[in-house]
């Protein structure tokens, strides 16, 4: 379970929310309302006062890298630091099968990243984000650049992760997707988050 108490995200009133293990909480709100900043603050990518707990462990009891191995932020526009997708993975045995399940041909793994489309990069980034088995996924528009078929494939992966006990916080502009994946929805409007507490 992920629990947040009075997290002071830039531009928002203190945020409190909780998500049970294996559940998905959707975060909705207009563009620029601070959804991305909220996810970044939870992953400890931006400084924010307040308390964040994973199970009973408080974030401040772990180092930053330790926390982020448990609580994983997946950006809407992911970054890469090597030439090919494959070189970003420590373990590549199951990778081709996982890629295929998201509609990605295995040849794409060794193509220069600059030659991949936005949607291909987005799906590979999701695979990279879940590769080492984080407990919490903070998904920022995970299907923003995808067609309906690829969107369904990504949702299947997210559902499988939820069943295996991964906790998900989902930022999405697609109400139908929120219905399909999320058990609950919270909303940011005018700098206030409502509906975060179960």
């Amino acid at each position: 379970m992920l629990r947040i108490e009075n997290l002071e995200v830039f531009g928002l009133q203190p945020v409190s929310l909780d998500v049970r293990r294996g559940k998905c909480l959707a975060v909705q709100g207009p563009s620029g309302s601070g959804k991305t900043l909220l996810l970044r603050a939870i992953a400890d990518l931006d400084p924010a006062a307040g308390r964040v707990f994973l199970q009973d462990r408080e974030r401040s009891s772990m180092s930053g890298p330790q926390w982020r191995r448990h609580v994983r932020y997946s950006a809407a526009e992911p970054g890469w630091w090597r030439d090919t997708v494959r070189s970003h993975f420590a373990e590549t045995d199951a990778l081709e099968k996982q890629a295929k399940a998201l509609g990605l041909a295995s040849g794409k793994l060794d193509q220069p990243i600059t030659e991949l489309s936005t949607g291909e990069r987005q799906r590979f980034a999701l695979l990279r984000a879940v590769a080492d088995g984080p407990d919490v996924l903070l998904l920022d528009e995970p299907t923003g650049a995808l067609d309906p078929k690829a969107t369904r494939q990504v949702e299947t992966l997210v559902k499988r992760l939820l069943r295996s006990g991964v906790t998900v916080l989902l930022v999405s502009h697609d109400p139908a997707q929120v219905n399909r994946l999320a058990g609950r929805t919270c909303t940011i409007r005018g700098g206030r988050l409502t509906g975060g507490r179960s």
Partner: protein
Amino acid sequence: MTGAGYIELSYFDLVLAAALILINGLLSVAFRLGLERTLALNAARMVVQLGAIGFVLKFIFAQTSPLWTLGLGLCMVLFAGREAVARQTRRFRGWVAYGLGTSTLLFVGLLAVLFGVGVLIGPDPWYSPRFVLPILGMILGNTLTGISLGLDTLTTAANRERASIEARIALGHTRNDAMSAVTRQALRTGLMPIINAMAATGIVALPGMMTGQILAGVDPVQATKYQLLIMFLIAGGTGLGVLIAVLGGMRLLTDDRHRLRLDRLEKPDQ
């Protein structure tokens, strides 16, 4: 100090040489480079600074006092520290910008003088300003170029590579790992001038100090030995200075929670 073949310059010689600056001025006007003002100002600045330092050095050499030497040495470090960050695209906010460069230069300058003058050259007394100050100046001048290039590369690259650095941080990598590519790039860029200088020295360029000694009548082989000593001091000093400044800059660009902190940089000047 005046060797056998030393010829004194008259002020009239200098005025004639200064006329050459007009070439640059005409160039600027003809191609509308807009550099006339800067050119005139900086040429004037050079004349005033060099002229003043000539008299200051004459005074300090006459004292041979450790305090005067230390005082002028510190002034040189402070000015070098300012120059090291003066033309950065993205500076650190607050005193840190100045502090990082200056403390690095202070450390490197001190070490180079203690080792180069105190141990290797060994004049009597060891703090003799005639040896300490020119060598400190050469060390500082070269090290500040390396530091300036290294830090400029570091901050510019960190800004450009923000997405890839934060992707690694989000995946749980440490700041050292996440910043390794830009750190390496900054170190390489900072070290490039001194490596180039060593490669070109003796073929393309006769270094200024060696030329000076030869003009003053010193045997070229003796002048070469001094120049090699200086080049090694500069290379070591630049290497150490670039290393400290870039790794220090990398720490400042991140925090103890291993976050990337680009908010600690000023917005770039237009």
